[in-house]
């Protein structure tokens, strides 16, 4: 329960900080004509939006193929980052290999966080299942 509150707190504070960043750069762009920063923010927002959309689509389509879906997920992240990088100048020309420097740590961190979450879920389910088994044994004994 405490972890859930902490997680919700982190998520909401991150969402609010994203909103503030977006709004500040929005004002800069419209009032002070500073469009370059706004474009960077917008490109990141669109990138994140597409990544999440693609991830959901891959999970839905390749639900029972964990290895393929994981590889495809990473391939999509790299390809999209490569395309966005060229379009919005995220890295200089000739430094395309930077794609991997950017994506591997972020993807690995995301993967680890997800894995930790699922591991906790697995522990929780196993605890509930063992409690359930104990209850069944008790019920059987009391009926006898």
């Amino acid at each position, binding site marked *: 329960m405490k972890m859930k509150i902490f997680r919700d707190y982190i998520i909401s504070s991150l969402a609010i900080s994203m909103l503030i960043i977006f709004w500040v750069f929005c004002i800069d762009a419209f009032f002070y004509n500073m469009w370059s920063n706004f474009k960077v923010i917008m490109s990141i927002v669109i990138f994140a939006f597409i990544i999440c959309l693609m991830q959901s689509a891959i*999970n*839905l389509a390749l*639900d*029972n193929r*964990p*290895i393929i*879906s*994981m590889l495809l997920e990473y391939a999509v992240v790299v390809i999209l980052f490569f395309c966005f990088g060229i379009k919005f100048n995220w890295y200089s020309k000739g430094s395309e290999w930077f794609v991997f420097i950017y994506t591997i740590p972020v993807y690995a961190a995301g*993967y680890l966080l*997800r*894995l930790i*979450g*699922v*591991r906790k*879920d*697995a522990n*929780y*389910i*196993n605890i*509930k*299942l063992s*409690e*359930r088994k104990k*209850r069944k044994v008790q*019920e059987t004994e009391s009926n006898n």
Partner: protein
Amino acid sequence: MDIILVEDKESDLEVQIRYQIMNAQVQQLIQRIKSVDVKIVGSDNGEETVLNIYDIFYIESIERKTFIYTKDQIFRSSKKLYQLLDELKEFGFVQINKSCIMNIDVLDSVKTLFNSKLKATLINGENVIITRTYIPAIKKWLDGEADLYENENF
């Protein structure tokens, strides 16, 4: 628990449960009685069988065909997976991935797989995959059942 049987040729089949307090045992009894009305038909080599829903371990849809797995048999169903889920969800069946629903009663343990999925081991030793999207449904079901017992003890 006493069972009173009354033969009345003029009335329909009626089950009356008299209880002191609504607890998990009464709930289970209600579920068991309700399950009598649910007819799940499976066919094995053209021979149709009415299955007891508590004998079903899991139901899987493969290439738009629905298969019902019991402890050691496989039956084909003419119904779609979502239709079966609708009929069975109140009896402890939950969706565990896009193409599979499982009877929680037969779940023995779970183990983490890479790519944030769970490998569920059933009481007959078989394994099925639980995807991340459907983990909350399983937790919710187990929590709901545990709450019933806690309320009873309280």
